[in-house]
């Protein structure tokens, strides 16, 4: 099996209850090496509990999960060694300096002194924080604290990263640094990432697979385009012309399922853009109509998300 096909994170019907409260119910997911799964959902949906189970912190009430083939219950310690977990809040020791803080965690993961220092310097530089290495964490801004927490997560070069809201407190520049770092981890180092986020743009940009979790259950999942197709229906296409259509609209209505139109544009539903659009362009060319653009009307992940989370329970699909 190639590394790419190798499933790094695997969960089967994972459940977690606290007393009578069911936090996670029958969650199944799979992330291959180099894959990024975005876990979306409202607050209290069960994302954090899922991450805690995957990282060997909490024991599932039912179901199974494996990280790199290791069971999260029987190999919890080994899993915690191989996973990097970023919790929702940075949770730093404010009386320590950045170096002391990272050195402490590096020591826990058993990194030799020289490697530890080199790794700390390297990561601090990558995230533009080398100048504050010896500064007390109480002096750090919110975004800096979050970046430091992320550095802590990456310090021991884990095979799997479980990140809860990694960029929520960051300015756009810092967020871009983080996105770049995550892309590098994904593409060059084939690290697997689970990203819990409310930032839907981030999710769409980073993830190859998205799962929407609601009241402890996964209610929709797939690639961003699959989810859109699943939940928002057929793609809506828009063709724009160089000049007003005049008499062409009637003929177009016969060929297409027109949704709306203007003087120089038409929007239409397409069942299969790949097979329908080339003949359309060919026909327009024959009619001597100059086409400026033909594209799909962008539909955001936000629409998908809202459609799922606003639906009554049990009718998400």
């Amino acid at each position: 099996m190639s590394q790419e096909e190798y499933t790094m994170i695997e969960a089967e019907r994972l459940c977690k209850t606290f007393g009578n409260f069911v936090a996670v119910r029958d969650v199944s997911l799979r992330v291959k090496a180099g894959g990024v799964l975005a876990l979306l959902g409202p607050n209290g949906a069960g994302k954090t509990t899922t991450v805690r189970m995957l990282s060997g912190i909490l024991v599932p009430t039912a179901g199974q999960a494996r990280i790199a083939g290791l069971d999260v219950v029987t190999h919890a310690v080994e899993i915690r060694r191989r996973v990097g977990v970023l919790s929702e809040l940075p949770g730093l020791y404010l009386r320590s300096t950045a170096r002391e803080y990272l050195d402490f965690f590096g020591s826990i993961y058993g990194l030799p002194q020289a490697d530890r220092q080199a790794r700390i310097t390297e990561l601090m530089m990558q995230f533009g924080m080398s100048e504050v290495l010896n500064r007390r964490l109480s002096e750090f801004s919110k975004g800096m604290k979050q970046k430091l927490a992320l550095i802590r997560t990456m310090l021991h070069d884990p095979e799997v990263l479980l990140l809860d809201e990694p960029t929520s407190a960051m300015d756009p520049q810092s967020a871009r640094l983080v996105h770049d770092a995550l892309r590098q981890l994904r593409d060059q180092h084939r690290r697997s990432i689970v990203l819990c986020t409310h930032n839907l743009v981030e999710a769409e940009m980073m993830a190859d697979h998205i799962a929407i979790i609601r009241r402890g259950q996964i209610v929709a999942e797939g690639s961003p385009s699959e989810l859109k197709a699943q939940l928002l229906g057929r793609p809506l296409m828009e063709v724009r012309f160089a000049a007003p259509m005049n008499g062409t609209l009637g003929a177009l209505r016969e060929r297409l399922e027109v949704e709306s139109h203007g003087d120089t544009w038409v929007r239409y539903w397409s069942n299969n853009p790949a097979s329908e659009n080339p003949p359309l362009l060919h026909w327009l060319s024959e009619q001597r109509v100059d086409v400026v653009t033909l594209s799909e009307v962008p539909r955001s992940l936000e629409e998908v998300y809202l459609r799922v989370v606003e639906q009554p329970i049990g009718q998400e699909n």
Partner: protein
Amino acid sequence: MAAITVNQSSVSWFSGMWLIVRRELRDTFRDWRMITPIVMLTVFFPVLMTWAAGVAQNFVNRFDTPLIAERLIPFLMLIVGFFPISFSLVIALEAFVGERERKSLEPLLSTPLSDGQLYVGKMIASLVPALLAAFLGIGVYLLGLFVFRGWTPPPILLAQVSALTFMEGVVMVAGAVVVSSHSTSVRAANLLASFIIIPMAILVQVEAVILFQAIYDAMWGIVLALVVVALILIRMGVRLFNREELLGREIDSINLRNVFRRAGQYFVAVAPNQPRAHFNLSGIYRHHVPAALRRTKNAILAILVALGVSMVVAWAWGSQFSLPPGALDFSHFSSESFDSAATNFLLPSFTWHAVWWNNTRAVLLYFVTAFFSFGSLAIVLIMLPVAPIAFIGALVSNSGFNPVVFLAAFILPHGIFELPAAIIGAAAAVRVGASLINRDRSLTLGEGWWSAIMDFLKLMIFVVIPLLLLAAIFEVHVTPRVVCAVYGCGG
């Protein structure tokens, strides 16, 4: 990125624990709110106590009562050690619940460190500064006394005070972990910490009395008791300080309605987490009571063992004595004799309701004492009336009478109801206290506690009280007749 190859090696248990100790100590020593009072109590307070001891000594010498000063000096040594050691509680609350409140615990929980490493590391880190301060303070105090008064403590006293100071620190830190496990904020933990501070303050007063009475050997007894309490609290802390417990509890707020609803649910269900059962008396005796007894069986066993041991010891002790001649002469006995004998044992009168109320009150006392002793005092209390029976049995036997006949006449008629009732009541009470340290893993701590309380109530209402009622009626109306029938009452 990641140009540097990262080589991980596993960290030994001790090294991992020691990393926690070092980090926690660094944090503590950087916090002026911790350091300032510790320094004050280490340096200034012992100097003040040295001066106070001198003033007191001069004062009492004027009245020719040097004994008071002699006894005061060891007590002040204890106080000089106790004040800084009380800071271990504050440091421990910061280390356990403070870290949880600041959300810095979760990154630690996601590392390969075990719950045990975290627990022990934090315990040691909480103890070290306070112990250092306490022993330094005692050192400063003793130095002052030596320099200005020429007084040196007897080595045994120094050992006792050191052991007490150390154990008080351990108990406070172990207690702080238990308190922390039930709170998610330092504020809530501080409120709960009064359950540690108040008993410790009472203990210091007891120690003061002992030191003023110069019963120094009793101090070892207190050390031993503190060791037992520390072991119980550590066991409880180890069970509570784990990832599941720490992350499963997110808020401190008490929902009274929910608490009482849950309690009511446990009362009307055969077992916790089972649906409410329809209330009918036969169902209570067919399902509820047997289920509650099954859950209480370990406590019943513990009580039977304790009673067995106490009876053997009491019998062995009683075998050394014999009754004076004529002590078992019942020729002048009458039913009034039972009445007067009973009123000597704190009963208002020898009536069935007085006997019943007295015995019911005793079982309720087991319940109350079990609350704050993890059940242990309930076991001690039930041994108190039972051991004398064995003692008297041995005396009777030594005096040439058949102890079986004696016990069968005096105890059996009502004891057949009273003893099972007392054992079941005490066992249910023991379970209430013990559920805090040895809980059912399928329930949360609070659920286990409520379940034990509800089982106590069920057993009390449907088993213990009716049995005690029968026992009281038999004790008043049947036992005297049996005694008279066996031994012959002349009066």
